[in-house]
């Protein structure tokens, strides 16, 4: 079973040379730590930076330089700052090749819910609706089940949607799954996790091939 860092590490393997990547708040942010040295990749944060670098050294943080999670960051050589309209022009115009974000629920039709629990919790969608509506590649990073142990991979989302039919790949603490033809397709198992455990934790229809390789991370 993977921890959050393990999920991030596995997702880092989805990244290709020359890609611009938007990382959401939480687990997705950790993906940046696992990009191989020398790979040409730039991270976009939708509040207005391309070429986001690591967190600053203590004492060098700048209130004017943050990421979309409001964390203090640094800028890499070649970085650019821009306004929010330009930022979402990049996103909506499909200039960003990969979006990684968290989710509360994902469905077999590729729907995603991650911004609201009616009557209980409202974080707001932030940039997530723009990102999922436009990104060519969306990878969802999340735990396979919620705190109550219920599956987050469902036949249909029960929470208000963030986007419809947009998620193609999910990486959880248990598995890598693709979404196509109205079902989850098991692609890889996390180290030490059995197919049976994944089946038990997946509420939506799950297609299991004869051979399910264990992740290399």
């Amino acid at each position, binding site marked *: 079973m993977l921890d959050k860092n393990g999920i991030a590490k596995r997702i880092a393997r989805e990244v290709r040379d020359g890609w611009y990547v938007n990382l959401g708040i939480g687990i997705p942010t950790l993906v940046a730590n696992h990009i191989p040295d020398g790979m040409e990749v730039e991270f976009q944060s939708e509040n207005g930076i391309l070429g986001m670098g690591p967190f600053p*050294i203590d*004492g060098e943080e700048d209130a004017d330089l943050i990421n979309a999670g409001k964390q203090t960051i640094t800028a890499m050589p070649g970085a650019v700052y821009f*306004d929010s309209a330009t930022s979402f022009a990049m996103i909506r115009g499909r200039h960003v090749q990969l979006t990684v974000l968290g989710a509360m629920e994902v469905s077999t039709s590729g729907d995603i819910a991650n911004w609201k629990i009616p009557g209980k919790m409202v974080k707001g969608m932030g940039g997530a609706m723009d990102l999922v509506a436009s990104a060519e590649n969306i990878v969802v990073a999340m735990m396979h089940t919620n705190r109550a142990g219920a599956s987050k991979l469902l036949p249909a989302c029960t929470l208000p949607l963030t986007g419809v039919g947009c998620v193609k790949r999910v990486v959880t603490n248990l598995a890598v799954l693709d979404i196509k033809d109205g079902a989850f397709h098991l692609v890889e198992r996390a180290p030490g996790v059995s197919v049976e455990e994944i089946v038990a934790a997946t509420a939506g229809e799950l297609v299991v091939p004869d051979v399910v390789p264990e992740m290399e991370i």
Partner: protein
Amino acid sequence: MAISKVVNSVEEACAGVSSGMTLMLGGFGLCGIPENCIEELVRLGINDLTCISNNAGVDNFGLGRLLQNRQIVKMISSYVGENEEFERQMLSGELEVDLIPQGSLAERCRAGGAGIPAFFTPAGYGTEVAEGKEVRDFDGKPHILESALTSDFAFVKAWKGDTAGNLIFKATARNFNPMMAMAGKITVAEVEELVPVGELDPGQIHTPGIFVQRIFQGEKYEKRIEQRTVRNA
């Protein structure tokens, strides 16, 4: 001869703002917010405000101050985040809230400033955001029609500005400020440093002075950090 936009104080900058108005406020979280103007809005004690701002600050800083004082009746935002008072007022129904995808919010402000009354975007299709909005396919993909946003006043915060209202923002403190500057009927810019006209490179202005009606140098900037995150040296 350049048109001077200088006012002498935050009081003068906020003159004419009154209860019931729609205000835009730049900033993302606590980054790049018009601190001095917000304090003046608190001091003025006006209420029934509709505020268009990506977030609402935190409980005791930024727009959160206006929320605490119940000066706001409606928020148009994309993110509530960790602001507990914002979430509480929204869930209890005390505060009307329009939550809008962040990119649509930015583009709707730009559209308001650019004389574009409406545009199509894929963001929000199939979600609550699309309710009541026209849907149209382009290249086989559904889009929704979003309308422009404007405001009675827009409050923006820049790093440097000149007396003609030309603005330069620092790093990611730019965020929503340039679009809101475009969309305010009256745009008030507060800056960390106000310089004479001619000192800024004309090729390096982020917001041309034509979008700014009033400018002043803020008395002090706390520039609070919401999530101080550091690594080991």
